[in-house]
């Protein structure tokens, strides 16, 4: 219990300050989370779920925190140029865990709430209390417990029954600090029955310091509701990201999750999807491009609780240099979840001998009338294809790029937002060409 000590002491000393600058709906969970954290500690590599990522190492250094909620001298609307332009999004910013909005930016349908989680917990405490912390279980994962214990703010999105948010909502998360810094962020999404929304969350790190960011996202998707949630990470090699995304789906809901790691340091994404109502569908995809010593670990769990649900999962990694990747995907089909259709694919390219990929597809089925498949491959670029292209005069470098680009093409094509998809094809190409040490078009990162 070495890395844990400083966080336990921090909470003992600053617990009151944390609560004072947050809201009661969030504060009520802290004591229990603290207990859980003390009991669990950080997961170790002996825990099956964290076999490939050394959590303690990321949390051991001393990071600054802004528990006293001091203003950060930055106006993101002036300084930040959107990386996904022409998308006509409703653009919002979160600097560390503080939500920014311009009043004139609010043009959401009536009844839709998009605001700071702290504000929501005060104004709409009934809705927040009913959902906050209900999916993110602090008793099994020390990182979730730590986040719940320390998080003071974040984002709240609520779409009432039958309401459709046409315009995609883009949330740009910016990590901003002058010292090595820790951020604990929460996102709560509630889509009531028949509601529809599309949300793109982009992660950026603005400064050349070490960042440690924990994030817990909880999404409740009601009967017949549709949610598209994209996460695009373009941070620095000095950023450690621990994200937990929980999705709870009611009957006939349709959710698309797309996680893209374009540039990072160390990333651990845990995705937990519960299909709780008949006819629910989840489309879960992920794309990772990593080089240098970057590390990306995706851990997914899809729980088919009831019958007639479908899940489709596709993760692709391209690992260059000494990058390491891990994918563990479990699909659980519970007893009685008949007529489940589930497919899971994980395909990976190791471009160098030094790159490492660990893949662990898992299917656990307790129903007899199901259609489930899974498959994982780790390979190199097709030498025959490379030579074929070179014979046509395409340089080896260019041929490699074309093949890598082609490899991830089908993941990008799963994106249902045209502008984002087109932009991503371009960003991926730039990334492969090494033209993206930092994010594109982002003046804050320069």
């Amino acid at each position, binding site marked *: 219990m070495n890395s844990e000590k400083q966080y336990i002491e921090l909470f003992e000393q600053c617990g009151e300050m944390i609560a004072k600058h947050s809201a009661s709906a969030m504060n009520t969970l802290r004591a229990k989370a603290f207990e859980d954290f003390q009991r669990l500690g950080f997961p170790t590599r002996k825990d099956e779920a964290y076999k490939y990522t050394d959590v303690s190492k990321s949390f051991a250094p001393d990071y600054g925190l802004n528990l006293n909620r001091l203003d950060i001298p930055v106006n993101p609307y002036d300084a930040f140029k959107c990386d996904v332009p022409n998308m006509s999004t409703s653009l919002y910013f979160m600097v560390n865990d503080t939500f920014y909005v311009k009043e004139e930016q609010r043009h959401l349908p009536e009844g839709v709430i998009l605001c700071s989680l702290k504000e929501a917990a005060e104004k709409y405490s009934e809705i927040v209390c009913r959902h906050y912390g209900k999916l993110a279980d602090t008793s099994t994962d020390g990182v979730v417990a730590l986040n719940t214990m320390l998080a003071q703010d974040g984002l709240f999105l609520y779409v009432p029954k039958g309401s459709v948010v046409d315009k995609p909502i883009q949330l740009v998360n910016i990590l901003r600090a002058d010292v090595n810094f820790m951020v604990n962020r929460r996102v709560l999404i509630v889509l009531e029955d028949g509601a529809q929304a599309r949300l793109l969350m982009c992660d950026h790190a603005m400064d050349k310091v070490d960042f440690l960011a924990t994030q817990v996202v909880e999404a409740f998707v009601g009967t017949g509701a549709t949610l598209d949630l994209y996460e695009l990470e373009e941070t620095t090699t000095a950023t450690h990201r621990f994200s937990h995304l929980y999705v709870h789906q009611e009957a006939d809901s349709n959710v698309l999750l797309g996680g893209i790691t374009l540039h990072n340091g160390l990333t651990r994404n845990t995705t937990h999807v519960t299909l709780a109502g008949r006819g629910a569908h989840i489309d879960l995809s992920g794309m990772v491009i990593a080089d240098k010593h970057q590390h990306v670990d995706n851990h997914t769990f899809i729980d088919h609780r009831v019958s007639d649900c479908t899940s489709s999962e596709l993760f692709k990694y391209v690992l260059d240099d000494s990058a390491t990747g891990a994918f563990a995907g479990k699909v659980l089909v519970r007893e009685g979840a008949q007529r489940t259709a589930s497919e899971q694919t994980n395909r990976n390219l190791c471009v160098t001998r030094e790159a490492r990929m660990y893949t662990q597809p898992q299917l656990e089925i307790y129903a007899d009338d199901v259609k489930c498949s899974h498959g994982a491959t780790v390979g190199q670029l*097709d030498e*025959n*294809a490379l*030579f*074929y*292209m*070179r*014979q*046509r*005069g*395409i*340089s*080896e470098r*260019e041929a490699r790029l*074309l*093949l890598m*680009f*082609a*490899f991830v*093409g*089908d993941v990008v094509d799963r994106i249902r937002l045209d502008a984002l998809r087109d932009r991503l094809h371009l960003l991926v190409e730039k990334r492969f060409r090494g033209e993206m040490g930092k994010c594109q078009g982002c003046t804050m990162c320069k």
Partner: protein
Amino acid sequence: MLEIKDLHASINGKEILKGINLTIRDGEVHALMGQNGAGKSTLSNVLVGHPAYEVTKGSIIFNGKDLLEMSPEDRAHEGIFLSFQHPVEIPGVSMVNFMRAAVNEQRKYKGQPALTASEFLKLMREKRAIVELDGKLANRSVNEGFSGGEKKRNEIFQMAMLEPTFAILDETDSGLDVDALRIVAEGFNKLRTPQTSAMVITHYQRLLDYLKPDIVHVLLNGRIVKTGGPDLAQKIESRGFDWIKQEVNG
């Protein structure tokens, strides 16, 4: 144009070519015949610089330049084109992107500006007509899901796009029905100029009826053992290779 001297080459340590001597002049079409395993495909692979093959001895001079010193892509830029016996499928890479990269890299090598998107698409349309290649195929991934005949037609289409000065057709006739063979062969003939040369590897007279080679070589056990005019191909068609083997061994 092409001068091969005492060429020895091996793959995985096994010597396949054991002293090839061959000169091809501007405008000439040479046919290379021989049984399976004689070294025909090895010779074409060595000419285009396939990394799996090691040249242990000899030289290849192409238009005055040492070919063996060049990368595969530079050989292509210098005007060498191989119509593959087994064209490779490249899922996810569209024909358009593939050809645009190839054409523009060649133009860069020659110091020409890259084609604009509309210039390029116009060129694609023109060249497609030569081999009657369906526009739908041009929009698909390279060779993916193409029939055997479509793949071969696609090879000649790429040749039309790149306008090589020396083309190697490695069993381009295999897997083609009579109509497809005619389209491919006629397409190839349309692309010929007085300066372009070719080396045609085939087992059959059928393709040679269209291409009318100037010179026919027979390859046996890594060496050219017999060279003659077009009549040699006809003789092989009717009598096989045994009489040549006997000549060589006797």
